Structures are given as C-alpha cells and as structure tokens.
C-alpha cells in the first residue's frame, strides 16, 4: 500500500526530533550501554567507542556514521516471485505482516473459546493459513512449536519452506550455530529476515542477542533491531524520557550492526509502550498512549531516513471480539500514517502476544483490507476520521454497528493518541536523562521509574476508557476459514 507524503502524521516538529536525537546521543556518549560481550566491546572500542567500567560509551560521530552507512534499501524475496517486495527508506510504501511467537492457540468450540498450548501442528496450520491471507505481505513465525530447543530453528525452517511462499521472518534465532542449517533448509537466504532484541531496557546489551546480531549481520541477513521499553518500569514514565532512551538503545544497535558490517541491513523497530501501573505492571500494547509513542518512534526512524519496522495491532483481548477489533484498527491506521515501512501487524494475535486464533486471523485480514481502503480512498481526511470510518465499516462487515457511546469512546481514544502532554524542551529533557542515569546506576532501576510515574498517573497519562461491547457475527469468518483448507487436507474447524 502506498500513502501520500501528506498523509504522514508529523507527531513531532523537526526541532523536537532533533532534541530527541541529541538527548539520545548524550545518553550514549555519557552513560553508554552495558556490554559484557568481550568481542563486541572490542569491536566497538576499535571503532572509536570508549569504555567506562562495563559500559561502552558511543560518541556522536559514530552514530552519524552508522546512520549514514546503514542500508537504505532492503529486498525481501520470497519463494513466490510475485510476493517479493523491497523496503526503500525514502518511499512511502507500507507492508503489513503477521506478528510472532505466541504460546497458545484459541479455538472456537461449541461452548465459546478454548485456549490450548501451541504445538508443531499449529505452526504448520497457521503458516498455511497466513500464506493465503490477502493482507499479509510477509509472515513472521506465529507460534512456538513443541520440539526440543536444539531442534527448534531447523524445525521451524522446514515448516516455513513447506508452507510459506511469502517473505519469511523467522523472528528469534534460537541458536546461532543453526543459522547455516536454516539457510540450507530454506534454500535461499534472501527469503529470510529476523528480529533481534539487542538491548534490555534500560541500556544493557543482551549478550546472547549480541551473538545473534553478529551471526546475522556477518551473513548479510536483514534483522529488525527491536527495543521494547515499558514506561514506568524499564523506562521513564514520561513520553519524552522513554523516547530518548528507546532511541539511544536502537542507535546503539545500528552502530554495532554497522561496525560488524558497514551497510548492515537493519530496521529500526521501536516499541515504547507503557506499563499497567493501575494493576500489575504488565505491558499496555494497544492502549492509546502506547499507540502514540510507537507511532512517534516510527517518525524518528523516518527522520533518520532508515528502514522502519512498525508494531501494531497487539490487542489485550483474550478472544476475538469488538473491543479487540477496534484496538487493532486504531493501531494499524496510526502506525501506517506514521511512516513505518514494514509492520508486524499482530494479525491473528490475542492476549497481547501470548495467543493466536485462526478466527482472529480471518477477522484481521478483513479488517486490515478495510483500513487500507480507507487510508487510500480519502487521503485528505484526518487520521481520526479514517479510523472511525474503518471501524464503522468493519463493524458493519461483521453484522453489527458502532453505537453512539462506542463512537464517543473511539473519539476519546483518538484524541488521547493525538494529544501531546509534555514539552520537548531542554530543561524537561535534562530531567528525564537524569532519571535514566539514576535508574541505570541502580540495580533495581524499575523502582526509580515507577516512583517517577506517580504524578503522571494522576494527571491521566494512561488512558482509562470503556470497552466496546458489540457482538460480532462470525459466520462469514467460519466460511472463509473453511475455504482455506488445502485440497484433500484440513484446516482448523
């Protein structure tokens, strides 16, 4: 799907983007990232970083060089040549794909819904399903499979090779020693890409992820560098503070990748979400303030002019329903309009990223088609109106309607996404950087961030709205799901 330049939402002004960049560079040069991986520390030191205890401090000129070196165009090939595509950082082309690595499958039963642990057969079935979804441009490994860890990489590669004709994102590489085996099974490494969560927030490199990045970049494979801080626990509660930290973590990854191999094929994948500080600190993925922050991260990536991997559609709901559908539509629309090129769209996913449902895949495929149509049909319309139109059409498609209270609820969510609550000025940024520095210096940094959240919580930073209760008619979904069964084979009931 191609968007017009005018459709991109300028969440931050160029001055504000520059201020975030400078804040991140200050974090990297003064506080640095904890690195306990000897080879990586040496590589960074040889390229001009300096160590301070176990932390590697990255001067700004290394960041500038890495941003300049990093690949701006990445090809995502596929077994079916008609399904290959290219991500060009300068273009406004958007690709949507599935998200990955759920533990459970939610099945429809005579009594409602039943959640069962995912097994290898589920991975096969869901890959078969994803390969047929019109709106999934690429497939990220959807569920875990129940094989011993040592065999996991090769087993999933075999299943992808047998059941996927689209670009393949294998998500997490379990063992680097299996990489050659994976490529051999797939037959062409240009079909493959991965996700690497290199830095654990705040600012600490995961040694094992470092090994994975080394292996992938040395082979010239594309990897989405992912960072997923949670405001109020692993990052400042403040939007400004969380974005500065997130950006520093991702810039560190970009520097490292381009130190390993200049021109590294990496995507900027920022997922700055919030913690549910009303209850248990769990992640709030699809809540309005998280959608806003993830969208701004995409804008930062576009400002740098590098490929952007977005994340959208991660609903908190445990079963397919109208609330989940409304969350996903808002999230997909905002993400696309923020400039992400390659979006892990959580198609089929439920309960954050813990479950998938065959029904939800089909629901999401239909809803995402509507979102794309609405985004391209009226480019001059505001994103809020586009979201509302999409929700109305999707509800109608599933045999229901958006009543007045639900429409009001959608408008409130949109307003929360669109409303800036903090200044991006120097004094405020300095305060955020100080809190990150304090948290990094302390073993249990999360308490610093949580305590800093108390005031903001009372000022309404976290959205508290109502659930949208409409009943979806899933008969169309059932029929469509049945139509995906291969000839002589079966797919989920």
């Amino acid at each position, binding site marked *: 799907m191609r968007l017009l330049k005018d459709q991109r939402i300028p969440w931050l002004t160029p001055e504000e983007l520059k201020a975030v960049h400078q804040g991140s560079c200050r974090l990297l040069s003064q506080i640095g990232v904890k690195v306990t991986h000897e080879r990586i520390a040496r590589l960074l030191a040889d390229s001009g970083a300096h160590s301070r205890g176990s932390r590697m401090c990255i001067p700004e000129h290394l960041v500038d060089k890495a941003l300049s070196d990093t690949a701006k165009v990445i090809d995502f090939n596929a077994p079916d040549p008609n399904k290959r595509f290219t991500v060009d950082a300068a273009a406004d082309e958007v690709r949507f794909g599935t998200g990955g*690595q759920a*533990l459970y499958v939610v099945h429809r039963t005579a009594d409602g819904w039943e959640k069962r*642990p995912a097994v290898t057969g589920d991975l096969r079935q869901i890959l078969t399903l994803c390969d047929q979804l019109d709106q999934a441009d690429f497939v990220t490994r959807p569920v*875990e499979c129940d094989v011993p*860890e040592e065999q996991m990489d090769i087993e999933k590669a075999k299943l992808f090779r047998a059941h996927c004709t689209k670009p393949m994102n294998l998500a*997490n590489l*379990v063992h680097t020693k299996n990489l050659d085996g994976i490529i051999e099974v797939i037959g062409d490494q240009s079909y493959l890409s991965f996700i690497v969560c290199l830095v*654990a927030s705040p600012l*600490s490199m*995961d*040694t*094992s992820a470092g090994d994975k990045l080394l292996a992938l970049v040395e082979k010239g494979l594309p990897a989405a560098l992912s960072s997923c801080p*949670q405001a*109020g*626990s*692993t990052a400042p509660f403040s939007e400004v503070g969380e974005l500065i930290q997130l950006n520093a973590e991702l810039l560190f990854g970009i520097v490292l990748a381009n130190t390993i191999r200049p021109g590294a094929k990496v995507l900027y994948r920022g997922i700055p979400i919030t*913690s549910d*500080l*009303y*209850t*248990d*600190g*769990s*992640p709030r993925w699809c809540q309005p303030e998280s959608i806003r922050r993830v969208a701004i991260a995409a804008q930062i990536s576009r400002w740098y002019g590098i490929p952007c991997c977005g994340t959208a559609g991660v609903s908190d709901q445990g079963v397919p329903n109208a609330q989940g559908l409304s969350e996903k539509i808002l999230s997909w629309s905002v993400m696309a309009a923020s400039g992400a090129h390659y979006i892990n769209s959580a198609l089929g996913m439920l309960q*954050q990223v*813990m479950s998938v449902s065959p029904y939800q895949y089909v629901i999401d495929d239909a809803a995402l088609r509507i979102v794309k149509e609405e985004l391209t049909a009226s480019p001059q319309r505001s994103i809020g109106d586009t979201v509302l139109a999409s929700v109305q059409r999707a509800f109608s498609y599933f045999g229901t309607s958006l009543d007045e209270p639900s429409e009001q609820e959608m408008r409130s969510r949109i307003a929360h996404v669109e409303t800036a609550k903090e200044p991006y000025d120097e004094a405020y940024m300095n305060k955020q950087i100080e809190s990150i520095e304090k948290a990094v210096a302390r*073993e*249990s940094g*999360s*308490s610093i961030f*949580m*305590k800093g*959240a*108390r*005031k903001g*919580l009372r000022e309404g930073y976290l959205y508290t709205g109502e659930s949208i209760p409409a009943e979806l008619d899933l008969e169309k979904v059932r029929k469509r799901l049945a139509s995906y069964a291969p000839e002589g084979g079966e797919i989920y009931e």
Partner: protein
Amino acid sequence: MSRKETVRDLEHSIIMGHIDSDDEGYDGMMEGTPGTMELVETALEEGIDPQDILTVFNEAMDQVGVKFESGEYLLPDMLASAECVGEAMEILEPKLAAGSGTGKGKFLIATVKGDLHDIGKNIVITMLKGAGYQVKDLGIDVPADDIVAAVREYQPDYVGLSALLTTTMIEMEHVVKKIREAGFNGVKIFIGGAPTSEEFARKIGADKHCRDAMDTIEKIEETRDVS
C-alpha cells in the same frame, strides 16, 4: 520533635512512599522534607524502641494495603511504601533484639539464564521486603548452577524464578530439576513471568505459579499456613 511526632511523621512518610529527602513522595511535593530513612534514624536517636518502630512499619503498610484495595492507591504508590519499609529495615534489623525480627522467612530470587528482564522480579522483591521477608536477589541471566550454589549457601525457605520470554521460560524446568537433584526437596519453588502458568508450574515440578507480587505474598502465606 517529640517522640509522638516522630512516630506520626514516620508513619505518614511510609504511607506517602517518601523514602528520603531527595524523593518527591506521593504528591510530588515532599522533596526536601525528611523521609522514611531520616525519620527512622531520628526515631532511633530519640531512643524509641526498635520493636515499636517495627510496629509503625506494620501499621503503615496495613493502611497502604487498605488504600490499594480501595483503588485510592495505585501500584507505584504501594511499591514506594514497600520500598520505604524494605530500605528502613536495613537500618532497623541490626537494632532488633535477636529473634525478635519479623521471622517470616528467607526468599531467594533470580531471573533465569538467558533472560535479562527484571521488572516483575523487582516488584516482587520490593513487596516481599515491605512485608518483612528477607530477600536475596541473584539478579538477571542467572545460570542454574549459580542458583543451586546460592540455595546451598543461603538456605532459603523459598526460591522464586522469573522469566519474561517464551524462549527462556524453559530454563526454569532445568533449574527446578537441579535444585531437587541437589537434595533441596523442602525448599518451595515459585515461578512467575508473563508466559508462565499454573499448568507450566505443574509440568516442571515447581510448587506454585504466581501471577504478580500480591499473589506471591498470598501464596507464601498459604504455604506457611500449611506447613
């Protein structure tokens, strides 16, 4: 300041989650005023019996619990208060007469190998300390052998294992097996983290699955009641 005022201020300071004078407290307005740490020192200097100070801690935390239950307090408020008590106990513990501490038990906790996440673990630690447990934190990315060695050295009543990733939760099974193989059959093993479940706890031989910090405390209490 009279002793009565000191006790009143200390209780208020804990309820407001005001750990020290650098901290802004519940309402963001308390920076520069004495916090729990300073007030505990003052109370000891004024000769207030450490056992009475411990009573203040308990009464303050009871009030915080009521506020949390009613929705007036949110998670960070409760954690801030628990942190006040946990940190202040470091000062108070040596002053308490031998055997007169809280005596609730020792809890060893770690995020398993391969996993660097510590949000849940740190919340649990803060809450446990606030509730009067002695906690030994081994940190993140801890190999099974190091956990077993710590069990041997620290002799905990409970071991807590945390993992956030679907790819690292499987390490928990390895740790449970090693603890049992080393002969520590009496120690209760609790697991927690987003991908874990009751079913998974049963499968790997852990004693309890905990949804969150409050659930952990409730399950420890259940275990203590049974034993």
